[in-house]
């Protein structure tokens, strides 16, 4: 008789779920993802404004940026920054200052900026031209109109795809394991390379990734609800439903 023996020890999963190396790795993953996303949003905003500006040089430069960083793999960009750039300059300070963590934040952030600039641009284009007319007729400059009138409205269009981007970012930080940054995935591989419990440690990493993306998705839904002020129908979220079930605020 043949028995199908499955070699998987659930105990090992529990034992390593909160292992210090895993916890530090998860924390590192969050740090890289948040810092890179913030950088990406700032760059995206700047490049989107440059793209739609009347200055042809700014517009072309922005187009070139998007073309390059969307057109090459992010892993290649990470290698270029971490291995290629120090070779070019052969400068001791640069090599020591450019830690794996900094290189990861910079590479993922600049790459993200290219995608974010297209998202922000779409958001700006989604605001009716009449809004700009009204703002200008009140004496606002282009920049004031952008800041006080157009961008706040673009934000509602920009948030959902940005949430998507951030979730992708959380997972893509695992690429930094290729430059030996001890983030979540690298933490797990370091452990299974000593105890050979591959599947258990990969499950540990998966549990952490799922937990992080779930928490973030819930937070995003809350944010969208807060930003829906002024709309007739406001989206319900897990949190708002729970509150109304408990007899709390209604539709507020």
């Amino acid at each position: 008789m043949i028995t199908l023996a499955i070699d998987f020890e659930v105990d090992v999963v529990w034992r390593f779920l909160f292992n210090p190396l895993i916890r530090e790795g998860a924390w590192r993953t969050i740090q890289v993802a948040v810092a890179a996303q913030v950088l990406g949003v700032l760059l995206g905003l700047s490049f989107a404004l440059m793209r739609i500006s009347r200055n042809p040089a700014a517009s072309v430069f922005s187009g070139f940026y998007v073309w390059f960083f969307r057109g090459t793999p992010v892993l290649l960009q990470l290698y270029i920054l971490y291995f290629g750039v120090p070779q070019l300059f052969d400068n001791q300070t640069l090599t020591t200052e450019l830690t794996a963590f900094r290189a990861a934040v910079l590479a993922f952030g600049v790459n993200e900026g290219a995608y974010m600039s297209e998202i922000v641009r779409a958001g700006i284009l989604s605001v009716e031209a009449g809004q700009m007319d009204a703002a200008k007729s009140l004496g606002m400059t282009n920049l004031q109109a952008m800041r006080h009138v157009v961008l706040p409205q673009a934000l509602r269009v920009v948030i959902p795809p940005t949430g998507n981007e951030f979730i992708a970012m959380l997972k893509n930080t695992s690429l930094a394991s290729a430059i030996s940054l001890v983030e979540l995935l690298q933490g797990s591989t370091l452990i299974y390379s000593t105890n050979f419990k591959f599947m258990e440690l990969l499950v540990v990493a998966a549990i952490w990734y799922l937990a992080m993306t779930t928490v973030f998705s819930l937070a995003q839904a809350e944010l969208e609800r807060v930003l829906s002020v002024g709309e007739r129908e406001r989206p319900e979220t897990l949190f708002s439903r729970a509150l109304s079930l408990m007899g709390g605020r209604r539709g507020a």
Partner: protein
Amino acid sequence: MVRALDVHKRFGRLEVLRGVDMDVARGEVVVLIGPSGSGKTTFLRCINHLERVDGGTIYVDGELVGYREKNGRLVEDREPEVARKRAAIGMVFQRFNLFPHLSALGNVVEAPLSVKKLSRREAGELGRELLGKVGLADKLDAYPSQLSGGQQQRVAIARALAMQPKLMLFDEATSALDPELVGEVLEVMKSLAREGMTMIVVSHEMGFTREAADRIVFMDEGVIVEEGPPEEMFARPLQPRTQAFLSKIL
């Protein structure tokens, strides 16, 4: 207050304004009428430089709009300068163009805060006073989506007045409204006219025109065909084109 000389504007191959001259005195209320496509809205938008003119000049209160003279030639103003001149010209749009993310009060105080740099308290007082004036003292915190069309347009008027303009432009301010809401907006416009505001109004509301206008200007195909006081224009239009148009809308 407004002096337009030989204003030309084209969109691509289409010449929308073909030499418009107009003088508007301080405190005067001018109603622009004419068939659709005659250039009324474009002319209004040229007055505050939302459209760049291709030829001619427009002065508002003695200042050239959108341009300055340099060695006898006209040079387009830099953006902050355009913005400063625009601030003195209020505009009300056909589709209201209220800021949907701000409350009624927020709409009114936004420009005083960000352009005039008033304090929150000063701007708030001004906003409450103006919304009271247009009969919306009880709607300060309502968002545009919670207001009727007539209420939205009155907020838009209050918003334009908050910059204390010398001139108000109304671009078909009542034509997007349900018939029963037109009256409340026209009332506000009439009271502004009575207070001595200089106004250029694109409108086909002949009741308003009869009551509040000092002058009617009839435009067709990018030029002014005929102008005169309402009584005369309604009773004895001279040009056949004016007669034909008025017979359709009166």
